[in-house]
Each structure stands twice: as C-alpha cells, then as structure tokens.
C-alpha cells in the first residue's frame, strides 16, 4: 500500500520537474504555541524565505548553527526596534518538521511581543500568515508524517477549520462584518458590470456609462480599503481569550453561575424568568487562562420584542463560542436516572447550534445541572454517579450556585477543557488573524490597481483585477474551502495519475 504511494510521488515529481519549473512556494508563519499565560511563545516559519526571515529579524551576522538554540536580539526589519531577546532555531530542509527550510523564534509569551514578531514577519516579502493546518499539511506533502498520522490529518484539519470558522464568525460579528459585506457586494456588482460590458456590450446596448460607474466604485473602494489598512488600531477591538458562553433555558440559573464564577454580582439575578435580556460579558482569569465569559438571555419563545432580540444575541454568542456551558435546572430532571440522557439530550439540542454538526458542538460544551440544593441528597448522589459513567453526554457537573456545592468538581472539569482549548493556537489569536486580514486586504487593494492600470488598455485584464480583488476579500471571511486545502496539497506535490 505504501509503495503505491511512494511510486506516485516519484512519478509526480518527475513530471513536475520535466514540464515546468517548480513554482515558488509561499513562506508561512504562525504562532505555534498555545494561547494563555505562558513563559515562552513559539513562532514558527516555514518555506524558502525562512533564512531571509531569520536574517531579517536577527541581523545578517552569526547565523545560528542548524538545529541548535542561539540567543539573539529580535528586531523589526524596517523600524529596527528591538522586539525581544529570545532563542532562535534554524532548521534547513529537509531536516525539519515540514521538510522545508524552517525557523523558530522562542520569545517571551506576552501578547505585545508575539504580535510584534508576527507583524515583523508579515512585513517581509514572500511571507504570509499560515492558514489553518498549513504546517501539518506541508509536513504531509514532504512525507514527514507516518501512515497513522496521515489518517488523523483529516480530523485535525476538521478541528482547525472549525476553530477558524468560530474565530471568523467572532470577528465577522458587528461593524467589521458589515464593512466587509458591503465591500464585497460592491465589488461583485463592479465585476458583474464589467463582465456584462464585455460579453454583451457590442450587441445589447450596454452603454459605456456602465464602466464609468465601475471606475468610481473602484476608486472609492480603494480609498476606503487604504484608510482601513492605515487605521487598523482604531478598528473593532478584537477580543482576546477563550470565549466561554453560558446558555440555557430561562431561570436555569445562568446569571447565578456567572456571578459565582466572578465572585461578584456582575449580573442581576431574580427568580423571574427572562431577567437577563442582553449579553453580559466579563473578563476572568480561570486557572491561569484568559476567559471572556458571557451570560446570555434564557432561550425561549417569547412575544416580547426586547427579549426576542436577547434570544437572538444569545444564539449568536453560542455560535461563536469556544466553549458553551449549558445550564439546566436540576429540579426538572426526571427521577428515573435512565430517562436522564434523553432529557439532557433534548436540552442540548435546543441550545447548541446545528449548523456545524451536533457532534462538533458537543465537543465544545459542558453541562451544568444547577440547583442541586433543591434535590434530595440521595438523588444528587445517584445522579452524579450516573453522570460520571455516561460517556454519551458531554462532561456534566451537578452543582448549586446557591450553596457552591459541587463547584470544585465543576472547576476541575472547566479547567481541563480550557487547558485543551488554549493548547490550540487557533483559539483566539487576534494578531494572527489580523495579519491575515491585512495581507488579503492588501491583495485586494493591489488587484484594484490592476483594474485601473488596464481600464483603457485591455478590459479583459482589467476585469481580471476586479475578480482577484473579490477573491482576496472572500478569503478574509475565514472560509477555508475544500479548494484552498487542495491548493496546498497540489501546489508542491503531484498525486494521482
């Protein structure tokens, strides 16, 4: 089986070499260590320009010996500002994780240092932020992953795509989303107009005025994009940290849970169903992990317009969440333990988003059965024992926000989820996402320049510019399509017949 694979690869590379020069590969970079409080952050670079990146950030002298740690000052290649002093590594290909030339910067873990290094790398020619799972895929191409690792790659890509989707959704909520959507609509219209003029201009009485409109729109868009690029800091503040959302039916005790976790009455609690109508957010440090905790309106059908909006916002929050705490009123639990999974399953279905597949949602959720103080002691014990051994459900904790009974259990479970989430470098790294946005916006801007350059010379080439601009903008939304994945798979590597 494996021979078949090798055979294909060698044949493939033969064909690539013989038919055309191998096309240049982009050099990619990303924060490879997890998010959260940590002493050291690892920024990884891979691709042909890795040596350039190393020289650019640490100076031309004393290149580190291959695969050996070297202590260097790390500075911004343009401003020459010192960013940090840290360890650098140089891994010439093929003896690296990806098989390509690679470099690593081990810097101090603060967000300012990390984003400084990422910005510095992004300013070098030929470097761009890595897409989800790109390092792993490169390793796959280079044959650096064993058979079993490759089998798991699909799941990995799935998880990373999922993380990026949530990240994108988060960023796309609000003004920024509105802005990008608006740009994208206008660009689509421009392209449609140019195309119409090309395909039907001759016979179908489409006037030249159509193009003048496009000219105006393109110029306007260029101005807006430039302003946006130079105005990055004033843009929507990206929220850092793991997004944890408390959700559930009305009066289950969601706000009480929030207050319990922040040890202060951050949200109003009352026995009246529908007390919380808006999203209440608070920043917390839970076991050393930065958490943005949101309390949401209880999910129920309601005729109250304000509450309806609250419910809509709650659902939106759950969509964007890294982790959802589904709060259930334990007094509603059926007394027969065998009925409990069905009951809880129905609750989960009602709260969690279905769009991405329930299984995926379940993996990002903890069940909180509140109001245990109102249950008879023997039922609490029976239920807890039952929950502990039921693998079909997400982790579930029985607790009382009123007496704090069971809190310790819950915190252990919450921290273990947080630590695995923070180990995922994609969960909330705004600087990386921002760098990607900037790269694509820049692409978009340049492509619009192509339109203007060719407007009067060659309309086919001008239209191509608008099309490229639209593609660039489309990538910002964080959509990782199957094609992008294949793009990388096939770019360097010829598989198949």
């Amino acid at each position: 089986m494996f021979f078949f694979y090798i055979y294909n690869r060698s044949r493939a590379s033969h064909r690539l070499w013989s038919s055309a020069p191998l096309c240049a590969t982009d050099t990619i970079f990303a924060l490879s260590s997890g998010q959260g409080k940590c002493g050291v952050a690892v920024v990884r670079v891979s691709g042909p320009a890795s040596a350039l990146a190393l020289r650019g950030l640490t100076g031309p002298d004393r290149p580190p010996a291959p695969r050996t740690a070297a202590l260097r000052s790390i500075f911004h290649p343009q401003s020459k500002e010192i960013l940090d002093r840290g360890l650098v590594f140089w891994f010439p290909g093929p003896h690296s994780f990806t098989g390509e030339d690679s470099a690593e910067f081990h810097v101090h873990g603060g967000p300012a240092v990390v984003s400084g290094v990422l910005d510095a790398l992004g300013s070098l020619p030929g470097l761009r932020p890595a897409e989800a799972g790109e390092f792993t895929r490169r390793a796959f191409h280079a044959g650096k992953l064993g058979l079993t690792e490759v089998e798991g790659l699909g799941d990995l890509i799935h998880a990373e795509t999922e993380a990026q989707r949530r990240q994108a959704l988060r960023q796309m909520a609000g003004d920024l989303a509105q802005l990008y959507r608006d740009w994208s609509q206008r660009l689509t219209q421009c392209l449609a107009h140019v195309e119409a003029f090309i395909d039907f201009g001759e016979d179908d009485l489409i006037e030249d005025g159509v193009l003048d409109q496009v000219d105006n729109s393109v110029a306007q868009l260029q101005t807006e994009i430039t302003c946006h690029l130079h105005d990055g800091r004033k843009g929507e503040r990206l929220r850092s940290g793991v997004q944890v959302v408390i959700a559930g039916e009305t009066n289950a005790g969601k706000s009480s849970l929030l207050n319990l976790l922040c040890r202060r009455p951050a949200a109003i609690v009352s026995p009246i169903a529908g007390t919380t109508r808006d999203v209440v957010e608070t920043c917390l440090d839970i076991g050393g992990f930065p958490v943005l905790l949101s309390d949401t309106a209880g999910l129920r059908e309601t005729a109250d317009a304000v509450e309806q909006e609250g419910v809509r916002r709650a659902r939106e929050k759950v969509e964007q969440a890294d982790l959802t705490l589904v709060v259930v009123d334990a007094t509603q639990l059926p007394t027969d333990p065998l009925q409990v999974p069905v009951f809880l399953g129905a609750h989960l279905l009602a709260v969690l988003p279905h769009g991405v597949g329930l299984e995926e949602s379940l993996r990002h959720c903890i069940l909180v059965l509140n109001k245990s103080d109102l249950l008879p002691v023997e039922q609490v014990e029976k239920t807890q024992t039952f929950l502990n051994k039921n693998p079909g459900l997400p982790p579930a904790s029985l607790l009382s926000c009123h007496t704090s009974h069971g809190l310790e259990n819950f915190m252990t479970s919450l921290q273990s989820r947080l630590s695995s989430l923070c180990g995922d470098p994609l969960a909330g790294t705004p600087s990386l996402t921002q760098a990607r946005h900037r790269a694509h916006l820049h692409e978009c801007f340049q492509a619009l320049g192509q339109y203007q350059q060719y407007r009067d010379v060659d309309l086919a080439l001008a239209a191509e510019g608008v099309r490229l601009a639209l593609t660039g903008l489309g990538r910002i939304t964080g959509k990782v399509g199957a094609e992008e994945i294949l793009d990388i798979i096939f770019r360097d590597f010829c598989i198949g017949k």
Partner: protein
Amino acid sequence: MLARRVLNRPRSLASPSSWAASARTVTACDVIVVGGGHAGTEAAAAATRVGAETLLVTQKIQTIGALSCNPSLGGVGKGQLVREVDALDGLMGRAGDWAGVHFSILNRSKGPAVWGPRAQLDRPRYRQFIQAELLSMPRLTVVEGSVEELLVSEPDPEKPGKHRVTGVRMADTGRIILARSVVLTTGTFLSGSLFMGQTTSPGGRMGDPPSGSGLSRSLKEVLGLRLGRLRTGTPPRIFKRSVDLSLAQLQLPDQRPTPFSFISNGTHCKPEEQLPCYLINTTPGVERVVRESLHLNSHIQQDTRGPRYCPSIESRVLRFPGRQHQVRLLREIPALRKAEIQAPGYGVQYDFVCPTQLFPSLEVRSAQGLFLAGQINGTTGYEEAAAQGVWAGVSAGRRALSLPPLSLSRTQSYIGVLIDDLVGRGITEPYRMFTSRAEFRTSLRPDNADLRLTLKGYCDIGCVSPRRYEEAVRMKAGLSEALSALQDITLSPTRWREKLPQAAVSANKSGIMSAEEVLQYKDVSFEMLASAFPDVLGPYVEFAERLKIEAMYRPHCEKQRREIERILQEESLSLPQDVDYLSLPVSLSQEVRELLDRVRPATLGAASRLPGMTPAAILHLLNYITRTPQRDRSAERSSTPDPQNLSDESRDSFPCVPVSQ
C-alpha cells in the same frame, strides 16, 4: 448530385442502394451519428478523423449543415468556440471562411482575450461547403432516414454503466445497424413541437417531418434518463426588397476580414465584396402589438424554459404572435413598413437530456457507447453544438477503436469549460457561451487556440491532420523564436527612448528593459520594433499581431499558471464512477455520503467544488483514491451484477483521462 456521390461510393458497409432492397438486414460500422446539424456534422467528421468507420444518418442530405436560425457565426465567446473547433480540425471555421459575406471582430476595443470574431454567412454556401466536405470524406457514409429506436443490451461489466447501446433500428425499413458507438445530435427534434400563433404541430424545424417518438422513448423508458423541456424560436424571414434600408442603421464589416480558420489563407469573399448589415430598432408600436396578441401565442404562455440571452426580437419585447400579427408587428417598424414575409417566425419546444448524466467525454454514464451532443444537452447556438459535436465524435471514435476516453480541461479551452459546466452543473436554461464563464480567459484566447489544441489534437487525441499539425508546429516555433529574440534585445530606458520615441518609456524607469517589455506598452507594435531592429526581428513580422498579444498577456498568464496547475491536478484525480459512497469504508459524514452518491462527481476537483463538501471529506477521499489499490476498490462497487465477473485484473474505472498537458 451530391446524393449520387454517396450512392456511388464503394463502402465497406452495404451501400444505401442495397438498403432499400434488404429490409431488416443487419450491418455494422464503428460509429453512427444521428443528425446532420452542426453537432452531428462535426461529430461525424471528428469520428472519421480519429479513424473510425462512420455512418451519418440524417432526414435529408439536403439540409445537412443548414443554418436553421440566424445566418451569423461566432461572436463574443462563441468566436472562441469556432476557433477551437477549427484548431481540432473541425469544419465550422473553414465553412465560415468560405460562406462569410460580412466579417467583423466584436469587442475590438476591449482586449484580444475577449475579441469576438463573427461573420454573417450566405446560407446556401455554408451548407454546400459542409455537404461537400462530408460527402467526400473517407470512412464516412451518409444515409437519409430516421432512427426509430436505440438497440440496448447488457453492459460490459468491465466498465461503468447499466446498459450498452449497440446500434440503431431505422424507422422506415426496420433495418438494424450495429455500431460500437452511437452519437445522438437530434437538436430540437426530440419530441419537438412547432408553435405558430395558437397552432401546434409536431416537428423540430419548419418544413421537415417530425422524428418518431421512438428515440424519446428509448432514452426515457429504456435507458431511464432524466429529460427536461426547453423552448427556442426563430424570427420571420423578410424579403430584402421590401425593406426600406434608408431607415436602418448601417453596419460595415471590417475592411480586412479575419478568417476563422488557422489554415485559411483568407476568406473566400473578397474584402471589398463584403455585404453591409443593417440594424433596426423596435418601436413602442411593436410592444403594443406584442401585448395585444399575447393571448394568441401559446408558445410563450406555456411554462417551458427559454433562453434569456437569445438576441432576437422575442426576448426583447415579449414573444411571438401569429403570422398575421407578425406582419402587423413588423410593419410597426419604420424600415419594415412594407415588409413582406418570406417565411414566418415560429417557436420550438423540445426535449433535452439533463447533461449531468454524461461523462466529460459526453458519453451517457448509464449507457455505454451512447454519446450526446448539441441541443439535446440543453445548449443553444451553432457554435456550442459544433464544439460538443467535435468532442462527442472524438470520444465515440476513440471508444469504437478501443482507445481510452479523454476529457478536455476547462483550464485549456472553452470547449472544456462548456462540457465541464454541462456535466458538472447541469442547466436551468438553454446554455450559451460567454467569455465570463471561462475563469482563465486571458489564457484561452481566440488567437492561441491552435497552440492550445492543435498540437494535442494531433499527438494525443488523433483528430488533426498532418498538414494542420505542421502549420501549428511552424507557428509555435516561429512565435517562441521571436519571443526569445525579443527577450534578448535589452537596452536601458534612456536608449529605448532614443530608439523608439513613440513608446513613451517613462524617464524614471530604471534598470534595463527587454524588447518584450517594451512591446507591452500600449502604443508599441511589433512592426515598430521590427523596423528598429530589422536584422533580428525582421523575419518574424508575419507573427506581429500574435506577438503583441503574447507579450501583453504573458505576465498575467504566468500568474494564472499555478492556479491552472492546481485544477489540472485535481482533474487528474478521477473518482471511480460506480463506487458505493453510502458504504465506503472511509470516514465521511452521512450528509457528504448522500451528496456524493447523488452527484457522483467525476473528479476530486469536481467534488471539491460541490457546495456542502468539507475539506476533511476531500482529504479522506484523496487518501482513499491514492492509497487504495484499484482491485480493492472495485470490490466495493455497488453495481456488480455477478462477483464472478470481477476478474483479477485491475481495471480502469476512470471515466476519462485528461488530455495530457
């Protein structure tokens, strides 16, 4: 006279004269093409070029190559198709050069990639050319007649498909003709109905008898294909003498007509003998008549999908009135106040086969040996029909000769775009080609169709004559020599300003510039460079226009190359056509399984473009294709009638091999 030539030609087949005498006799050939329109003629010609003994069945030899609707060939997008059909050695381009009486390049001001070569044709001359070509073609027999039904038998278990088409039964004589491949190009004749006013009659074209319902039944009931219904129409014909041309807008042809064909030495019509065209506009009165007579127009009232893009009067105002109303309508237009109708306009409704049921070779997925081309696949237009005809003919011929099927990539040709759109996405209205359908149109230009297709057409496909091949080779060598000569001339911007003041090389340009870069300037022509460097560039003046275009587009085509390579590689990964996705031992979600089962994409590339497909699923599929030996895969097939038939040999389950790049 033409018909007699058919009768007199010695054939390996029974000659038509003996046909009438011996009804029910069984004869055989490699390929049968049913239909003598633009798809059928190209299919028949292409199959013979590939080397197959071919039989063309048509209702009337006299109407072979008829331009049933307007007399115009080419245009924006369609002109590219004509050039590509020609590059594959088809008939259409040469016929257009022979019959054209008015040549112009549309979109002249918008860039060579979207130029639309177009000609107005003399109908009889076009028909004569096509008929003369076909009737003198070796390996091709033309017979008059109607096909009653397809002969269908058990499939070859080695290949995908539920049925196998083995030939046709003729309508009148009941004669059976066996063939390894059958190409159907029935146009609007498949269950066609003609509409004029409120009268409806069966038929596919005014003046021709309707086809029997047998074929429709063969496709629908025997082969179980999904059919749909489409609508089209053709305008009334008016005597020129009855038109007041002084009230019309004059449109002159290009002074130097550009031939369609890469091997034509020019157009048959002399530049100065070209005819002008006249443009007239509708008036509010026209709209009023159309509205008033709408209740008399059953064609338009019926709910059948018609083309949104047909540039005829019907799409502009509303639709057809009856004959007397056509007169009334026409006479609302000043220039047509005295118009006399030679033949009235009419509408046609016809069956088409949902083209997602085809392989990219245009073979029906479920019926081995059956190929479809032209309007039967839901397209509209002569050029679209001819393009499919060439490819169906090539595929049918290759199948008959036991050669592996091929597919054309959408990154390499408009024909590839057309077929990929049809079989990959299907249609909701009659499909017409536009340049915006081709993602890589700056690479797929009308000027370079020969470099894209002729060389492959000779070496890989086998449908191009040596003469045309040699011309393409000469062209390619000339262009690449000239381009390297241009690259070798390098001067500083200051020197360029002295040498070529017209070029307006910017004063703040630094470094050295090659002549190729200078040629990219808007106001620089190759002729200017050639007169500045007569010794080096003088020999290449014949390629001047193409060199200018090449220089303009090369940087952009380079940028596109990576994307093109990616798509080509995806397309090279075929998915087995008869795999049972629902039980495939690969980690896929139920939704993805059902999606794959429903659409059955031909390649991994097609699968990745499906909405609802996930990256992880693509990776698992990729892993499955590349890691599972074919023998194991074949065991997972769903449509295996008898396990005994699964011999040990590994067989090729791939529907099509892309033409090598």
